[in-house]
């Protein structure tokens, strides 16, 4: 009874595995990569070797070889897929190159300059009474102090305004509220203000209030605040929105007032995120050069009074060291690199603190 369906003809010759036929081997991409690296190394060895050229040529050979191989063995669709995968990976590696290169360059050029004297001394001309020579003393103490003061004041202005605005947007405003919509839109737009415009704003403001030559550290702080407030608002807003609505409702159900709910329930829950966001905002503005340069100008003198006179900061020191070098150009450039490295250290430290805060103080319970 069984209707047998016998194959009309037996396969002859080598039996091909229909599941893998028409496919390249699984690790083919690595083989091709190794091959193209070797090939381009050989080609460049004949023409003069350099690392960048080697990597670029390898990438080109790899993409071509893979594309041709795949379209020969597989089909055009798969070939496109493989080439795109390669292109996307190359794009990513391409982005890492500047990051690595920048960090290496800053360390290589800056590390020789940084020592205890550089950090603790101010720049000055020193008259040696024995040899009767005037030597330039390089130091960044005035810039370190200036950076900390200016960024500190900017943080003092921005953090309360930023957090309170975020609270308003998340806790008080309704969606239909015109003010909430306007503020959300303006905050978004404010993130796009060019930093130099913020500097010009502070300069104009203080010129009108104080009069001409209104350079001061406080003016730079105001400029930085304009840049920092939107960042703080956006971070805090995101963090507050992450707080589960259940917590608030539970609090209200117990008859707790809105003020107490926000300060005792919502803020403590979101505090890790808020601190992280604030830290990253500080890290963002601490490296701003243009607004500080406009508003606080630059100086080699030590000035710890933010309300009077120009103030030096690390980013501006790095800029002026290159653009307006002193008589000893090499020394100016060197101190610029020293300042840049110190700045990178500060930014890295702030980023690390932010990460640690996020890790350690993250709200528990939600796994």
């Amino acid at each position: 009874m069984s209707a047998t369906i016998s194959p009309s003809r037996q396969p002859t010759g080598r039996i091909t595995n229909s599941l893998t036929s028409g496919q390249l081997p699984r690790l083919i991409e690595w083989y091709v990569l190794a091959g193209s690296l070797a090939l381009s190394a050989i080609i460049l060895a004949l023409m003069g070797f350099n690392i960048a050229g080697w990597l670029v040529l390898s990438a080109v050979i790899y993409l071509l070889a893979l594309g041709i191989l795949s379209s020969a063995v597989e089909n055009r669709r798969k070939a496109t897929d493989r080439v795109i995968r390669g292109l996307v990976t190359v794009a990513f590696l391409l982005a890492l190159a500047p990051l690595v290169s920048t960090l290496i360059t800053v360390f290589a050029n800056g590390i020789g300059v940084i020592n205890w004297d550089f950090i603790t001394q101010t720049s000055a001309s020193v008259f040696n009474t024995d040899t009767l020579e005037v030597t330039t003393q390089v130091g960044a103490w005035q810039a370190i102090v200036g950076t900390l003061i200016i960024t500190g004041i900017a943080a003092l202005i921005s953090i309360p305004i930023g957090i309170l605005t975020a609270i308003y947007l998340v806790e008080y405003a309704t969606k239909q509220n015109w003010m909430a919509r306007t503020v959300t839109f303006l905050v978004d737009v404010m993130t796009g203000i060019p930093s130099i415009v913020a500097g010009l704003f502070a300069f104009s403001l203080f010129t009108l209030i104080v009069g001409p030559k209104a350079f001061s550290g406080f003016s730079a702080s105001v400029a930085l605040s304009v840049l920092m407030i939107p960042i703080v608002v956006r971070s805090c807003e995101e963090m507050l929105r992450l707080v589960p609505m259940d917590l608030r409702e539970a609090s209200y159900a117990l008859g707790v007032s809105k003020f107490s709910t926000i300060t005792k329930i919502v803020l403590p829950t979101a505090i890790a995120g808020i601190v992280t966001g604030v830290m990253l905002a500080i890290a963002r503005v601490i490296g701003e050069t243009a607004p500080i340069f406009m508003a606080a100008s630059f100086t080699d003198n030590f000035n710890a009074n933010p309300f009077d006179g120009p103030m030096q900061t690390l980013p501006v020191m790095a800029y002026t060291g290159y653009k307006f070098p002193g008589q000893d150009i090499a020394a100016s450039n060197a101190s610029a690199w020293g300042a840049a490295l110190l700045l990178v250290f500060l930014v890295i430290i702030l980023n690390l603190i932010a990460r640690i805060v996020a890790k350690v103080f993250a709200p528990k319970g939600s796994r």
Partner: protein
Amino acid sequence: MSTPGSPQPSGPAKKVRAKARPADRIFLGLSTGSAASIMVILAGVALFLIIQAVPAIVADWPNNSDLKSGPTGGYPNFWAYVGPLIWGTLFASAIALVIGAPVAIGIALFISHYAPRRLAGILGYLVDLLAAVPSIVFGLWGIIVIRPFLLPLSDWLNTYLGWIPLFGGQVSTTGSTILAGAVVLAVMILPIITSISREIFLQTPRLHEEAALALGATKWEMIKLAVFPYGRSGVISATLLGLGRALGETMAIALIISPAILVSVRMITEGENSQTIAANIALNFPIATTLQREALIGTGLLLFVISLAVNMLARVIAGRAGKGSQKKKKAMLAQLPPSDPSTVLAVDDVLAKKRNEGTVEHAEAAAVDGSPSEIDEEERKGKDA
């Protein structure tokens, strides 16, 4: 999002009002005041720039003793001075965008769809780190690394493609070209475009992707069919936001380009490159006299207007995706995440766990009641409802 505090009149007509406490009032006032101060600040920026700029804009440039000499000398009026600067700004940013945007979108795709899931979080963090590097450091890096690096390329371009106006002219020997500046700008805008595009690609509905794959699409076809259409407006907005950043970038250009104030399309010449507004201000501000400073502030005002327009355009394009007038359309397009990389970074840090687990584990996320990821989704969806 419903307002938690507003008492909902329910059932009986008798309205129960919460007792008003002084602390509540004060806190409401404080937070509303802060929100209002944002409007005041932005208005203030525009107002003070206008006040300072107007004297120079209306001044009689050829006959003004102050404006006749120095950086502003030799121009019939303010607009003749600022015109080439605007061109230079747009030109440098455009080159940066042409170089940077495709790479940035590629990186975003790599992180969201190609990289192993375990690595994706770390790789994304690495790219975000690019945003943390201060711009002045990139400027210095551009001087000693990018300038010499591009010299052979410039020579080659000039020799073989010199008939194209872009690559024409006398090739720079130091490398202080607008091309070098634009390359550094491209590096700076990478993290912005990448972080926003990445968030948008990650929002692609899982079902769209799986449907495409189930129909036999390769990964790239799946991305073309499901990911790009969903994220298109978001990616365009991201690119515009990157453009906004490039327009206002000062230090890299000021340090690298050896500029002139003229309209030129040459990319690899020295001293014949168009200057940008921001760099021009940074270079001339310290040496300018009062009225010249006001002229510079005038150019800054125009930069403010341009970048504001670009940013608003970006928001409007993204907003159209969000608002969409009809409800159905809304679900079809991605939402723009917080634009600033540092905000994305902060959210990433706090939600690191969620990001690593990825979107695959829907069931698990659902099991944990009120997990951040869920709330996040709800909030984002509800925001524009």
